[in-house]
């Protein structure tokens, strides 16, 4: 287990231009602390690319590159092949991408690199929409959330996003990936331990880390961690990992906090009515039934 005191002091992501309170920045900073300097990093078009690397600014203090939006996975494969050809040892080939770049346009490429079994680490910071371009929905946007492309309709009664969040974890498990996990920036030790495992494991590793976005979700910038915790405590996000062909659920809430505690703190859910909340509750309970039956023998 990781000891906070032993985490390096060195800041490998510093001086970036992310919004105050950015969950993606928290996750990326912590990832870099665990992965360290011996890495080649690729990040596609995303908040993280925009806030770190615009000529002549470069806030990642490791060799890095901006990957094409659709092809982070493929770029990682190429980098791994390259370091293999060059005989470079003890290096992590790392990708950091948003949910759009992972679950939508990048999923083919992600599936490709995982299927090939290349020794890489892929971190998806999940802020549940295309935040960099002004909050458009992605397949990771949860039910009921308003985005600029899934607005809530005043007259029509449209509730915003009408589909449930895509489950990337299950997709990765189906690939029989070497290691994968879900995490949250609100549980940093759990997260960093997972990053450490991802780094250490041979073969592909994938972590989807929930990274609340004050700007896009609509909450004060000081509440990023609080919101992240509530997502887990209400059962709307779960912390899990898959290793050695087994799934572990890291936190199983005995009772869920009311989902309103989480949802009503965010502008994107403010319009939801009780019947909408009931749909979300039902979805959550169904998901957990599935998790319990499948992974917890309950």
């Amino acid at each position, binding site marked *: 287990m990781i000891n*906070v*005191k032993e*985490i*390096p*002091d*060195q*800041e490998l*992501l*510093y*001086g*970036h*231009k*992310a*919004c*105050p*309170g*950015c*969950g993606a*920045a*928290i996750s990326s*900073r*912590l990832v870099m602390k665990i992965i360290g300097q011996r890495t080649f990093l690729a990040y596609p078009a995303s908040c993280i690319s925009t806030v770190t*690397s615009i*000529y*002549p*600014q*470069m*806030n*990642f*203090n*490791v*060799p*890095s590159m901006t990957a094409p939006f659709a092809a982070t996975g493929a770029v990682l494969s190429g980098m791994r092949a390259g370091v293999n050809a060059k005989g470079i040892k003890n290096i992590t080939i790392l990708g950091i991408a948003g949910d759009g770049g992972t679950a939508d346009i990048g999923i083919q490429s992600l599936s490709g690199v995982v299927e090939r079994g290349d020794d890489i680490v892929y971190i998806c910071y999940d802020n549940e929409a295309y935040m960099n371009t002004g909050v458009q929905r992605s397949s990771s946007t949860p039910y009921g959330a308003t985005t600029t492309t899934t607005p809530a309709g005043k007259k029509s009664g449209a509730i915003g996003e009408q589909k449930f969040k895509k489950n990337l974890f299950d997709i990765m498990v189906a690939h029989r990936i070497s290691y994968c996990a879900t995490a949250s*920036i609100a549980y*940093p030790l759990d997260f960093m331990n997972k990053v450490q495992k991802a780094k250490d494991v041979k073969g592909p590793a994938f972590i989807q880390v929930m990274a609340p976005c*004050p700007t896009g979700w609509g909450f*004060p*910038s*000081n*509440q*990023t*961690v*609080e919101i992240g915790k509530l997502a887990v405590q209400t059962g709307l996000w779960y912390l899990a990992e898959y290793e050695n062909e087994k799934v572990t659920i890291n936190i199983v809430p005995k009772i869920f906090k009311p989902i309103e505690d989480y949802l009503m703190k965010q502008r994107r859910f403010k319009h939801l009515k009780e019947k909408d909340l009931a749909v979300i509750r039902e979805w959550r309970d169904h998901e957990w039934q599935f998790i319990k039956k499948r992974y917890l023998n309950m």
Partner: protein
Amino acid sequence: MNKPKVGKFVYPASETEMPIGPYVKAGILVDINAGWRTFRPILDKEKCIKCQTCWIFCPEGVIDRTGDNFEIDYDYCKGCGICANECPKNAISMRKEGENSD
């Protein structure tokens, strides 16, 4: 604390000084972010128990835990307030920029 330093970026003065390809050296910061801040975190060193909660959650990584007391790099702090919000001892308070700090 080990972090990149602000340095003066020397822009190419001619065609021959341009890099071949859009790359840039890492480890130099071209400007500071202090202008982003409305509220400034003030750390009460008496109350601080050095639990590192603020250090770990800071999106900017501006809290230096290496000295005798925790220090904040105000050049890069954007004043988000996560540190103040998460501090278990309420050792950090957010104060409007420009107002006197006691």
